[in-house]
């Protein structure tokens, strides 16, 4: 009898628990709802709104506008400034993304050689990444300063006076200067991503290869690199997205100048919108930036979560 009672009691509380669970789940959802809802409004509704703005002729701060369809996009594709910005942006992507990944990977492989004081090296490599773009742009305009800058000073010391340049005042050099400075800033971050990948490989595998007489190079090339594909993809996505939305560093450095030589999509978007008050046209640029970013991220995200 006792057990029966216990059973009934257990079942009863079980049922009650399930009901309570449902109610509780609802309350929990209500608690997270404001957070999630405002995040979704901020990120998704605004993105949609931005697209709608790009279909209007809104100029200036006060919104009084008509829907004009895709005219802004037609204008955009005929705008030489758009193509200049896109060209500069592609240059940034093509050099910055592989550059920062290769240097970060080199740092990670070097740090993986049972280095003494590894933590100190790692911390130092990551320091540039702690800085705001406003700070790094200031530091690098000092480095590149034509008259008193560090780079020209070092070149002079090395006897390479002929290589001294105006750097960021030279329209043909400025994008490369920016790319080098950004690689400098992100290399430590890239190193951390790859180091985490390398460290996640079980030690037994490399030990086994070593027993078989594999050289250090073979171990990395044949065993470690193929297994850190996930790190490569992560780094690629992060740096691609950064290169597409980059703005701060270039704006603070020289407002995208001299001339239009360092205008990339993010810079031109800001200028059209807030310097010339062409809100609708600026929104057209941002829609393009968003589409390019989504093109890179979405396939990757869905693949990752489908695997899980």
């Amino acid at each position, binding site marked *: 009898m006792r057990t029966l009672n216990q059973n009934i009691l257990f079942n009863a509380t079980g049922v009650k628990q399930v009901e309570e669970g449902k109610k509780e789940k609802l309350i929990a959802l209500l608690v997270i709802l404001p957070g999630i809802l405002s995040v979704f409004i901020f990120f998704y509704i605004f993105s949609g709104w931005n697209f709608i703005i790009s279909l209007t002729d809104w100029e200036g701060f006060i919104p009084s506008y008509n829907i004009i369809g895709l005219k802004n996009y037609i204008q955009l594709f005929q705008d030489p400034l758009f193509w200049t910005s896109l060209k500069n942006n592609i240059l940034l992507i093509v050099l910055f993304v592989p550059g920062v990944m290769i240097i970060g990977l080199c740092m990670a492989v070097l740090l993986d050689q049972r280095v003494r004081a590894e933590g100190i090296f790692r911390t130092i490599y990551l*320091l540039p990444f702690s800085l705001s773009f406003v700070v790094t742009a200031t530091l690098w305009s000092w480095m590149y300063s034509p008259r008193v800058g560090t780079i020209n000073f070092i070149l002079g010391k090395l006897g390479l006076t002929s290589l001294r340049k105006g750097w960021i005042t030279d329209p043909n050099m400025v994008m490369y200067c920016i790319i080098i400075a950004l690689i400098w800033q992100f290399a430590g971050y890239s190193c951390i991503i790859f180091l985490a990948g390398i460290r996640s490989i079980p030690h037994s595998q490399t030990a086994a290869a070593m027993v078989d007489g594999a050289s250090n190079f073979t171990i990395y090339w044949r065993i470690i690199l193929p297994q850190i594909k996930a790190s490569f993809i992560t780094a690629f996505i992060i740096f691609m997205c950064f290169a597409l939305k980059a703005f701060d560093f270039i704006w603070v450095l020289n407002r995208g100048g001299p001339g239009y030589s360092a205008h990339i999509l993010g810079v031109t978007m800001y200028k059209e919108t807030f310097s010339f008050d062409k809100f609708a046209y600026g929104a057209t640029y941002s829609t393009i930036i968003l589409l390019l970013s989504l093109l890179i991220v979405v396939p990757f995200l869905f693949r990752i979560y489908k695997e899980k």
Partner: protein
Amino acid sequence: MLNIKPSRILLYGLLIIFVIASLLPLWTCIVTALKSSQEVILTTPITPPIDPTMEKIIESINLLKKPLMNSLILVFSGVMVSAFFGSFIGYIFSKHRFPGSIYMFILIVLCLYIPPQVQLIPMVRTMSNLGLFGNLGALVLLYMLFGIPMCAFIFKTFYDDEIPDSYINAAKVDGAGIWTTYRRVVLPLSILPFVVAALLQVVVIWNDFIWGLVLTSGKANLPITVAMANLKGSFVAEWNLQMAGALWVSMPTLIIFIFLGKYIIRGYSGL
């Protein structure tokens, strides 16, 4: 007899080259900030100051005092709210899944990759409708929301990997509800993700520039990065003042990276 292999020497040589490359711009910043204007002209950019002076350091903090306070306000309010929401959202998505929760979570993570340019114009519009445009309040509100996706991601990853479902089930059997389980079981185990999420948010908010540039106006409302950029624009030739300002702006994040770097690294490498 000390016997060092040449390959080890090469290894440390390369490591040190990377160290020099990483630190050189910072080094020139520090030495220049400590020089008088005359000495900046007379000495090279990398030699230490012969006669160090705090003059420009003090001058720049006087210019940046108010923006520094503004940025502190932004950091504290932003971190508190997004860490709390992030933790609870992470907990629900990790331990109390519901139909469609995985897709909802993908949408939250996707927010991390949406370029800010898309939100600039609608945000300006919304803030002026709310009467907050130009005020610090606009940024306070913004950063509260802005950090939620990243915090949610950090907490969910941590709860997935480090807190076994059996803990939650055990609490359930003992009659604890979702909220009680969170408070009594999950929260006390969440110190690490709280530290990681908070530090990452501090760095992100402190260093952010574009939102302050767009949403605030007037000297009293600027965050420190925008004030610093203005400093750069208005004193072109005064390199020592600019470097002193840069030093103030970078101080908090440098301290975090140097002394609490292991938490930052855990955050960047996915906990």
